[in-house]
């Protein structure tokens, strides 16, 4: 008897008991669907983390000024302006691993349109900043070097601020916004950027040229830079080396001797990103292992039903043996039955899992991420489960004594 006939025989036996076959396969269906959906969730979460960091800008270092120290109380990084405009220029020109650097001068303040006002973060920066952060201008023109050179009173609104001041969907270009009593002209609205990994709203901010910021909002600081410096590293692998390069450059410039503490600090966002990604990977692995357990439970379900089926069909087995079925042929029939249940269940599970993953991706706004290797693995594993858990019942069937089996009521 060939494999084709054995499968046909198995299929016929399964179809004779459709409901039971379906319920048995259901365990595998749910298991495989769970694996695929769960892995898709994990991958979706991971991609979202990646996208969040991509939104922040890639290969970024942030150089922050040092701490103030008064009467022994140290104020923490950023409390004392220690970075200078010359430092910025030096980083731009002397650090070989750095491709670009831009200042981000920061202040919180109230901005007022004619009808509304809103407390937000005011940043002074250069056109390079928007390049480093890959931040597009949605409405109006992007910041240009001439804006910077002229120290123009022009302003770019983050999407949230634009909405708070002018209402959703409005076009505020050319409108006047007052900042500390000084009227600014709205030159552009920035594209929506979303949230930082810490949940901070990137779009709740306004930008003005750094020259204007320096002149109007932080006069009297002289050469000191009242904010941080964003540094873009040429390539992702060089972030750690670039960090050391910038660090030693600044230590030289600040004349810090050996053993002296840095009067600045450098944040490496690539490290933060990889930590977050590791978290997402752990989540992925956790979900996948939970799903794998449910697949295992599905396999035990198959074994359970096959055992019941073997007992219930004892007489049938006796008849088959009497007319000449060898133990091997009986074994093959029951094994193939379990295998067919598992594989058909696996395939339906793949379909269901893909559907669930698609629904979830719509729900959470994630890209649909179904890994072909996971689909293949889940289907293959369900086959292995079928053979693994079908073997014992099939062996039991093949070892029956035909005389006893024929007498079974």
């Amino acid at each position, binding site marked *: 008897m060939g494999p084709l006939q054995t499968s046909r025989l198995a299929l016929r036996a399964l179809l004779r008991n459709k409901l039971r076959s379906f319920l048995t396969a259901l365990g595998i269906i749910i298991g495989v669907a769970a694996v695929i959906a769960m892995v898709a969730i994990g991958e979706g979460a991971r991609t979202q983390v990646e996208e969040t960091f991509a939104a922040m800008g890639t290969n970024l270092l942030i150089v922050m000024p040092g701490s103030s120290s008064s009467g022994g109380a140290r104020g923490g990084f950023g409390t004392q302006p220690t970075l200078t405009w010359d430092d910025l220029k030096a980083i731009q020109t002397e650090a070989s691993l750095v491709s670009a650097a831009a200042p981000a001068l920061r202040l919180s303040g109230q901005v007022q349109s004619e009808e509304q006002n809103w407390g937000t973060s005011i940043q002074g920066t250069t056109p390079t900043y928007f390049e480093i952060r890959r931040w597009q201008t949605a409405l109006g023109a992007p910041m240009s070097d001439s804006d910077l050179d002229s120290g123009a009173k022009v302003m770019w609104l983050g999407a949230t601020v634009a909405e708070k001041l002018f209402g959703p969907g409005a076009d505020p270009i050319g409108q006047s916004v007052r900042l500390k009593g000084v009227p600014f002209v709205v030159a552009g609205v920035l594209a929506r950027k979303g949230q930082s990994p810490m949940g901070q709203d990137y779009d709740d901010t306004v930008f003005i040229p750094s020259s204007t910021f320096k002149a109007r909002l932080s006069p009297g600081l002289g050469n000191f830079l009242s904010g941080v410096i964003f540094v873009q590293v040429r390539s992702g692998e060089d972030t750690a080396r670039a960090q050391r390069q910038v660090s030693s450059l600044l230590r030289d410039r600040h004349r810090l001797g050996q053993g002296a503490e840095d009067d600045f600090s450098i944040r490496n966002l690539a490290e933060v990103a990889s930590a977050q990604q590791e978290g997402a990977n752990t989540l992925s692995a956790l979900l996948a292992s939970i799903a794998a357990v449910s697949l295992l439970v599905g396999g035990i379900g198959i074994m359970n039903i096959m055992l019941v089926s073997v007992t219930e069909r004892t007489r049938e087995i006796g008849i088959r043996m009497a*007319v000449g079925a060898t133990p091997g042929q009986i074994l093959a029939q029951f094994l193939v039955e379990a295998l067919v249940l598992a594989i058909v269940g696996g395939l339906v599970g793949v379909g269901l899992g893909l559907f669930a993953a698609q629904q979830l991706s719509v729900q959470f706004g994630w890209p649909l991420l179904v890994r072909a290797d996971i689909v293949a693995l889940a289907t293959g594993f369900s086959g292995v489960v079928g053979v693994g858990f079908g073997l014992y019942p099939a062996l039991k069937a093949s070892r029956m004594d035909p005389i006893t089996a024929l007498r079974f009521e």
Partner: protein
Amino acid sequence: MAGPVVALEGITRVFSLGDVEVHALRGVTLQVARGEFVAIMGSSGSGKSTLMNVVGCLDRPTAGRYLLDGVDVSRQSRAELARTRNKTIGFVFQSFNLLSRTSALENVELPLLYAGVGTRQRRARAAEALTRVGLGDRLEHLPNQLSGGQQQRVAIARALVTNPSLLLADEPTGALDTRTSEEVMSLLTGLRDLTVVLVTHEHDVAAWAQRVVTLRDGQILSDTQQTPFRLDPNRHEA
């Protein structure tokens, strides 16, 4: 092929039930010639079921030699016995033992399936066997759509489809009424050139055989030839 179909020499079969040993067969020597119709009789506990299991290659003797068609089958493995049953023996049981929810044709095909006969030939031979037992018009019927007599005829067709050397009938009329029993016995005895061993405890049924072997306590008590009973052909006119 010359020689007896069944040749049993000093067959014993001992069952161990815990500490107790039950001697079901105590040295049975018996030959059944080709074309013979032998009834094996005996009360329950006489060992006739055990003998039938041994002759049917469903069980192996504890000691003794069993030549089936000249082949020693007494020491064959389970798989070899299965192939022997498939090729050489046809079974008819008291309770028909048809696969439920399976058509008459597929039931009859079953032994050919395990013999590895191709689909088309299997169908043809099964249909032919069913026609031979008068069920040519019931091929696709399920067992529960057939009467008891018809079901037993399906079982007989299944036993005949492989052209076995030996047909073993174990109380084939036990579940049938008198009239149907006669039809089934008539069918069995009408099969030419077939060697039949019939196990029964009913004298009416044994009367159809040429030869009656009676067992008691695992030994042959008597072995007699007789004129077989046949239906009065005139009865069929009614």
